[in-house]
């Protein structure tokens, strides 16, 4: 019998703790496959965030560091400066990256730090049980916006990819989703390209991936994916926000 598909060895055998219908599992697999295909075997360091993917160090089968909430880009900076020939990536959610860690992500991009950030945006704080995030949509009900997010009080959701694309020394920024097979393939290609740019010493790359959170959105997995398509994608348009390599 011939093997036609197998799990990448860049994921450990530890079962994911993620909720049913959560997209972290798909995104983890794509990232791990890209690590395998990067050709950087034995020379990869990942940085895990605080949030739902806090245990990413248990899943990605490479050297890993767990960062304080929001600080992953600073930790990755320290790693990359000490090991400039390594492939260094951070894996962060929207609470981590778009709220408490805005200074760290903005300045990693500003310095043109040669790292890759995987930014998983599900418009909510998942791990703490569904609180409003800076990325929460207008009118979206969460445990800390029980009447729906009101722009007058909370501002409009922050678009990190567009913001970081404006920074002179960010190199490649793309927003993706994993809501269908075509988009999964696009996401994988984007991450592959980001790793390639990093290995070429090009500069800061971030791939934002829109992700469903059925548990905290109060929807079943099918409804959640539909909600993502009907609400998140229109506000957070998919596509390349900046690609200096293509210019």
């Amino acid at each position, binding site marked *: 019998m011939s093997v036609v598909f197998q799990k990448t*060895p*860049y994921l*450990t055998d530890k079962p994911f703790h993620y909720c049913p219908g959560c997209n972290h599992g798909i995104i983890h697999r794509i990232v791990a496959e890209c690590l395998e295909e990067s050709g950087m*075997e*034995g*020379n*990869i*360091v990942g*940085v895990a965030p605080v949030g739902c993917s*806090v245990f990413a*160090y*248990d899943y990605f*089968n*490479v*050297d*890993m*560091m*767990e*960062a*304080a909430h929001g*600080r992953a880009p*600073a*930790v*990755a*900076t*320290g*790693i*990359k*400066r*000490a*090991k400039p020939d390594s492939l260094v990536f951070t894996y962060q959610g929207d609470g981590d990256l778009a709220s408490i860690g805005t*200074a*760290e992500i*903005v*300045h990693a991009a*500003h*310095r043109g730090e040669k790292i890759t950030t995987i930014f998983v945006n599900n418009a909510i704080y998942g791990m703490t049980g569904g609180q409003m995030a800076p990325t929460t949509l207008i009118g979206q009900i969460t445990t800390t916006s029980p009447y729906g997010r009101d722009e007058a009080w909370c501002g409009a959701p922050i678009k990190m990819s567009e913001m970081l694309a404006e920074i002179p020394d960010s190199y490649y920024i793309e927003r993706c989703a994993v809501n269908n097979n075509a988009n999964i393939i696009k996401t994988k290609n984007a991450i592959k390209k980001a790793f390639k740019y990093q290995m070429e010493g090009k500069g800061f790359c971030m791939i934002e991936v829109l992700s469903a959170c059925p548990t905290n959105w109060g929807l079943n997995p099918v409804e959640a994916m539909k909600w993502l398509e009907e609400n998140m994608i229109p506000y957070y348009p998919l596509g390349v926000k900046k690609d200096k390599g293509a210019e």
Partner: protein
Amino acid sequence: MALTLMKGSEAIAEAAIRAGARFFFGYPITPQTEIPEYMSARMPEIGGCYLQAESEVAAINMVYGAAGTGARVITSSSSPGVSLKQEGISYCAGARLPCVILNVMRGGPGLGSIQASQGDYFQAVKGGGNGDYHLITYAPSSIQEAIDIMQFAYDKAEKYRVPVLFLADGIMCQMMEPVEMPPMKEYKVDPEKKPWAATGWKPGDDPEKRAVINSLFINTEELSVHNDILQAGYAQIRANEKMWECYKTEDADFIITAFGTVARIAKSAADSMRKEGIKVGVFRPITVWPFPYEELKEATKNCKAILDVEANEGQMLEDVKLAVLGSKPTEYFGHCGSLMPSTTEIIAKIHEMMKEGK
């Protein structure tokens, strides 16, 4: 060996480089800005890395990342900036990352002043960040002593896998003294000596050797075991790493306790009083954590009274009292803010104590 006249900040920075530090992450803040300035010029010369972070928060997390690869890393700041670093320091302690942190203390609380102070003693030795942890904390009282301690600071940090803190003050960094610089040490990460570090691992290698730099143990039993490991290390440090100086304490009737630059003022006061025929000595902890409790008790066993002198409201006083446990009258003199206690004031205080029959 020739002595060179050097400014404290530059001498301490150079000493760290001579001890193998090749990575500096920091942020400008008075009165230690000459350290990053010096590093920004010096690191490129020796193939090291100087990086001006966006904040002290980011700087200490860069330290975390670089130290996690096994490199010798340093950051420096002053009181308000060190407060910002406390989160990262706690994470370094929790993840058992060796590194060196300099606190060039200035007056507080809040923005305080930019002049020297000792107001961060509690922060340094009683906590600072969250959780049960300690830092080996050196309080040098001369530039030469800071240089000399720096030469073994990384060895201690790596032996026990703890961050090392230098608790200095603005005077130490701003003054100039003749110093002797040690030879340059090249440091290369040895994965055998640092099996915990992210030095390269691939699927198929021994899973036990995959680096996971982490302070999260969601299972309480596992966290308890992790804390036991930390505490066992602290017990070893307490047993092996205490440093202190006894200055004319042997026959002293009055013993002044003081640390850092204030101890130098205390020594001058002791010398003046000895000229008057009053036997005064100085006990100076060099490590303020671990604090030399037993050694202080032993040194003060024949004296009449203790005077604790600090440039704060009497923070080390609590440890001095713990050391002698009420066996000797123990007084305090000092100033908060950035006012340094003077020899005249110390002498007057001891005369006052003598009048009171202490």
